[in-house]
């Protein structure tokens, strides 16, 4: 039998090794913290009365913990499809600059738009952070498969974690299940700070924390939208004034 022609095709063989290396990298510390936080999200959806498969599906499809949490929170406070989608889309704006900053690192000359869209789908805080940290050390052809392996490993682990958290929420002793529910807010707050760019975004974090409870007393259904717009705009203006003063000196 003549096997040489099929053995000469270099791409699949060349891509599978970095893919699996990436998948193994999903089991690093940031990956484990992420899985923990999805366990918390799963426990929370149990609390909100979601079926387990809806919770797992939201992780596979949406694949962005802030968006999923915004969705769950909005639905729990009585928002409809339109209002919850609007809140989700505002929380997801952060993904755009993340995609824009990681794609030039991942792509090579031969990367198609389809492959770029696929890579973009997997961009979320942890995958983006770990992808940007680890791939620049690799050869250009290995970066995309490594990232896809990493991201798929993270999605798989997070989906299992979501289902496990949902299942565990009713069974664990109260102290532990309350601990799971408390995991998500602190993970979010710290990863926001970890990924923040400059003074403006740190101000935006502080303003969001302070404004949300105040605005919730005025307009409970759209409180997150208004918190984002008002807090973000104030942070932007202060940041701009600070820059101007610095460049004037």
């Amino acid at each position, binding site marked *: 039998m003549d096997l040489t022609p099929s053995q000469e095709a270099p791409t699949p063989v060349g891509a599978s090794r970095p893919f699996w290396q990436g998948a193994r990298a999903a089991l690093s510390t940031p990956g484990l913290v992420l899985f923990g936080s999805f366990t918390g999200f799963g426990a929370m959806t149990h609390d909100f009365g979601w079926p387990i498969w809806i919770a797992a*599906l939201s992780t596979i499809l949406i694949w962005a913990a802030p968006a999923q949490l915004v969705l769950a929170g909005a639905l729990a406070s009585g928002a409809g499809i339109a209002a919850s989608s609007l809140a989700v889309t505002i929380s997801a704006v952060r993904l755009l600059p993340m995609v824009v900053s990681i794609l030039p690192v991942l792509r090579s000359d031969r990367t198609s738009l389809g492959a770029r869209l696929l890579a973009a789908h997997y961009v979320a805080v942890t995958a983006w952070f770990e992808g940007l940290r680890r791939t620049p050390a690799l050869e250009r052809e290995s970066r995309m498969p490594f990232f896809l392996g990493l991201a798929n490993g993270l999605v798989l682990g997070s989906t299992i974690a979501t289902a496990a958290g949902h299942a565990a929420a009713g069974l664990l002793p109260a102290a*532990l299940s*309350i601990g799971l*529910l408390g995991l998500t807010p602190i993970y979010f707050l710290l990863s926001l700070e970890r990924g923040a760019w400059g003074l403006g975004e740190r101000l935006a974090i502080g*303003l969001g924390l302070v*404004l949300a*409870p105040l605005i919730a007393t005025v307009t409970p259904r759209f409180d997150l939208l208004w918190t984002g717009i008002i807090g973000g*705009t104030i942070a932007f203006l202060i940041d701009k004034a600070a820059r101007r003063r610095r460049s004037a000196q």
Partner: protein
Amino acid sequence: MTTPDVGFLLLAVVAAFFANELWRVLGAVLSARLNEDGAVFAWVRMVATALVAGLVAKLVLSPSGGFALAPLWLRLGSAAAGIAAYAVGRRSLALGVATAEIALIAGMVALGA
């Protein structure tokens, strides 16, 4: 709390998928042309950051599920412990999250949960 309708939940998740994916698709399409240092971009990032921070505050101050069984002082205290550990521990996410968790669970155990 009433149990939400499954069809409604499924629709909400699928709608949220499109609402979320929109920005990834835009990012992939525009990645060659967009100015990452532009003012609009910076503003948009800050609005999104404030929104997610607002969500964190809401989850801690007025949780709607079982997290409400932990008293307010414990919710705030455990978060503060996590932030302090994160700040002291060279901005380590794992350290901050683990500290907050231990404080919260220990607090609940001490309260007899």
